[in-house]
């Protein structure tokens, strides 16, 4: 009797505990969701979150641009919901990126439509190659072409050059660094074939940049050897001071002969970006080099590209480039030693004042 009672009591308790166990496991299995709020499943919201977070982690110039990226989130996040279309999202992204003043910021739809920040549109290019050709080169221009970098079936004109003042000055125009053409070797060959040269005018106006090493090689022809000209540090996380150690930037010398100490003029404008600015930064302090024209575009850091799940692509930068004195020229650009504009009056008069000054400096 006692045993039966005890067994029965145990069975009741066991039953009670089994019920508790099932309830307990059931409740706690869903507890995780109660504690950790799930993220939204909506595609537009996910795309927005990825976009915002990636730029939050990546972009190095928020304080420089005086942009509170968290405030941008708070202002724009409520505009996105499950019914937001990709076109609407594209417009929202544009409004978010507009205050970021880096020259590499851009968006691209899967259809190919692109947007880039408009900050440079207000400046004049101070550049007319037709004026240079007709007025200074007597329409005698040599073209150096190469297979297109992005599309090898196309042909790109990378270099245009000619001679001024009875072949005493070489005019050397580099249209792009986005090429596999050995620009330095081309220039070296021309200079070696023309020992009568008094100097060179390097015209890099409206050169949008390209491959950094190509610009560094060309710069080494003027620096004479591998030489330090700046530093670069990468953004590594979301906090303001999340940066890698700075690593040095050098011109890439090959020891096969340099330009030497003859005078050289470098013509620049507001549409010089990226690798072109690296070239200018590397040579501007040389005693025989004079920079003439307008400030460069101010977009030194290598561009990086992302693709969102909805196919929208965007380009940003994730590093800060400084010169060898640790000065930042992002956005401000590199100011020329001699500032000069090409006005409409100059153009109508058939004069390129930048080129005139360059000729004068070399003839000195």
């Amino acid at each position, binding site marked *: 009797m006692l045993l039966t009672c005890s067994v029965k009591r145990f069975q009741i308790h066991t039953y009670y505990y089994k019920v508790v166990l099932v309830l307990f496991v059931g409740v706690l*299995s869903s507890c995780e969701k109660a504690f950790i709020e799930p993220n939204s499943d909506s595609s537009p919201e996910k795309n927005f979150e990825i976009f915002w977070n990636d730029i939050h982690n990546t972009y190095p110039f928020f304080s420089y641009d005086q942009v509170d990226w968290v405030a941008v989130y708070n202002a724009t996040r409520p505009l996105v919901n499950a019914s937001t279309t990709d076109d609407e999202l594209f417009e929202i992204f544009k409004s978010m990126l507009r205050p970021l003043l880096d020259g590499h910021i851009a968006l691209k739809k899967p259809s190919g439509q692109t947007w880039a920040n408009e900050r440079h549109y207000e400046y004049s290019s101070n550049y007319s190659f037709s004026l240079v050709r007709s007025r200074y080169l007597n329409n005698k221009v040599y073209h150096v072409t190469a297979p297109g970098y992005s599309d090898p079936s196309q042909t790109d004109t990378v270099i245009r050059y000619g001679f001024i003042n009875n072949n005493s000055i070489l005019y050397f125009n580099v249209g792009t660094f986005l090429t596999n053409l050995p620009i330095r070797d081309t220039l070296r060959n021309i200079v070696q074939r023309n020992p009568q040269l008094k100097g060179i005018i390097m015209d890099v106006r409206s050169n949008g940049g390209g491959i950094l090493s190509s610009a560094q090689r060309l710069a080494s022809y003027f620096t004479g050897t591998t030489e330090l000209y700046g530093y670069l540090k990468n953004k590594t996380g979301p906090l303001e*001071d999340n940066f890698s150690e700075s690593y040095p930037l050098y011109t890439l010398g090959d020891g096969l002969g340099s330009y030497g100490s003859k005078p050289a003029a470098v013509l620049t404008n507001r549409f010089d970006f990226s690798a072109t600015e690296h070239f200018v930064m590397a040579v501007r302090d040389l005693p025989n080099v004079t920079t003439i024209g307008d400030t460069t575009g101010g977009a030194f850091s290598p561009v990086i590209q992302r693709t969102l799940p909805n196919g929208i692509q965007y380009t940003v930068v994730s590093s800060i480039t400084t010169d060898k004195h640790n000065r930042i020229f992002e956005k401000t650009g590199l100011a020329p030693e001699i500032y000069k504009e090409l006005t409409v009056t100059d153009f109508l008069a058939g004069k390129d004042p930048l080129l005139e000054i360059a000729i004068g400096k070399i003839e000195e």
Partner: protein
Amino acid sequence: MRLIQPRLVLILFFLTIWTMRSSAQESFHKLSLGTGWAGSTLKDKVISSYIYKKNGIPILLEYNYKGYHSFMGVRVYMLFNKLKTDENKGFAYKGDLGNFVPDKINGLTHSQVSCFTFQTRGYVLGRIYMDDRLSLGIGGFVQYDHVHKRFLVLSYENKLKEGFFSIGPQLMPVYISGPHEFQFALSASLLTVGARKLAPDEGSTTRVSGTSFLKEYMGVESRLTYSYSISQTIGVDFNYIFYYYQYSKPRKEQMAIQNLTAGLSFMF
């Protein structure tokens, strides 16, 4: 900041030994080793606000003592797994211009967080008898959590090391009948001393530390155990352990781990 948990764990250990020596006759020691399934969920804003999930195999090593007046025990828990999210599916560090960041670095992708959790917990509870089989343990616990995470931000492998020492109350009803034993334990951290060693590239302040009273840190554990004694000396244990913690400095992070384990136990 130097964490003080090793000293306190030592004190707890000696307290355990002292209590064992002074306890009444109706007491036994149990050493158990278990393993099974652990489902982890991590919500972390280090990379973004993604939710990472993964199942893993935990290891549970435990010593406990049931005395006439007290319950006490020490537990070591380990779990290693590579948590994964699909919330960034379709996102790529590349575009028409090429690939800018490698898809995989040191075995990690941008959708993964490699996570190692090590936990040591000790508890001391007074025992109140509800009837001849059911008793209630009321007391407190001390716990040290070490969490080591690896993840990628851009092309950088970041390592976060976190250490937390917590103290809080614990409630534990225990039902024992013959070879069967049911035990439920509920505990929550009240006071926490913690240090988070951030990734070196996460800023000049690579270490965040401080003491929190129910604010920056919060941990809850709920545990249900069924034990069956096969003989006087050998038994089996089945555990369901739900563990949740969150902290808010320098950013909010939440983690929940659900464990279902089975193991062998040795009584002496």
